[in-house]
């Protein structure tokens, strides 16, 4: 079983990397870009014996306590 965790900066926090990427892709001629936000993506291999509920719970905890900093970041967890 695999948990996928997406961590992104909160909408209220300025993202200098995202801004730079937006600037660069615009230079390359990609128009009509409203905004770019950069984030992190984690793949966590979980024990197959876990049921989806407990897999989700442990992935949520990891995301909350380690993978993200709640002061500046949000996270989202997917289980598959």
């Amino acid at each position, binding site marked *: 079983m695999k948990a996928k965790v997406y961590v992104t*900066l909160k909408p209220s*926090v*300025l993202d200098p*990397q995202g801004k*730079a990427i937006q600037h660069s892709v615009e230079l390359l001629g990609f128009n009509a870009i409203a905004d770019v936000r950069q984030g992190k993506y984690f793949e966590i291999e979980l024990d197959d014996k876990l049921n989806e509920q407990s897999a989700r719970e442990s992935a949520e905890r990891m995301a909350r306590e*380690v*993978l993200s*900093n709640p*002061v*500046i970041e949000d996270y989202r967890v997917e289980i598959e």
Partner: protein
Amino acid sequence: MKFGVIVFPGSNCDHDAYHVISKHVGQPVDFIWHRDTDLSSYDAVIIPGGFSYGDYLRAGALARFSPVMNSVKDFAARGRLVLGICNGFQILCEAGLLPGALIRNRDLHFICEHINIRVETTETAFTNRLRAGSVLSLPIAHAEGNYVCDDKTLEELQREDRIIFRYCDAGGETTGEANPNGSRDSIAGICNSARNVLGLMPHPERACEDLLGSADGSGVFSSLADTLAAQVSVY
């Protein structure tokens, strides 16, 4: 009085802090390995700069799980003095001992240079030998020093006089240009509400000798030492 310098895997300003305490402050100092948990013999601990755990995930994020950090929390709760410099400031924020967070510099890359900061308050154990409003020339060396916090936290920091240092120009004015990393409200250093935990991005330990270009950092350490000396005499 006795100082401790905490060493995480990847700390690299640990020797610099140790050197300043032993040579310039002239007080006993130990390295404390991150797996040690007994801080009972220390009066002040320094969390030095560097790249603890490679700064992987986020700067300072993984260091907070080291065993010593629970002891640091207790140590701080008992009113002992904790000074976090650069990566140490990042760790203190990640550990929740200080509010806010430090994100990537406004111009994205690592910056190493001498900058100016203004002493905003002398009401801490780290600044009581300095003069409010005075300008210090200190080096910075970081890629993630851009201080962010929400409006409520900022308002609280301002109201409680907990912004200890702000980036400024040579004349002491806080301008956008003098702010090297984009920090909110030009914040270079803050303390907790009990005023015994200080975090700052500039490196006072790199500025304690004229030979190295500035001795302006020594005031932070002499404030610390004098505060501790006064406490010892009270005991």
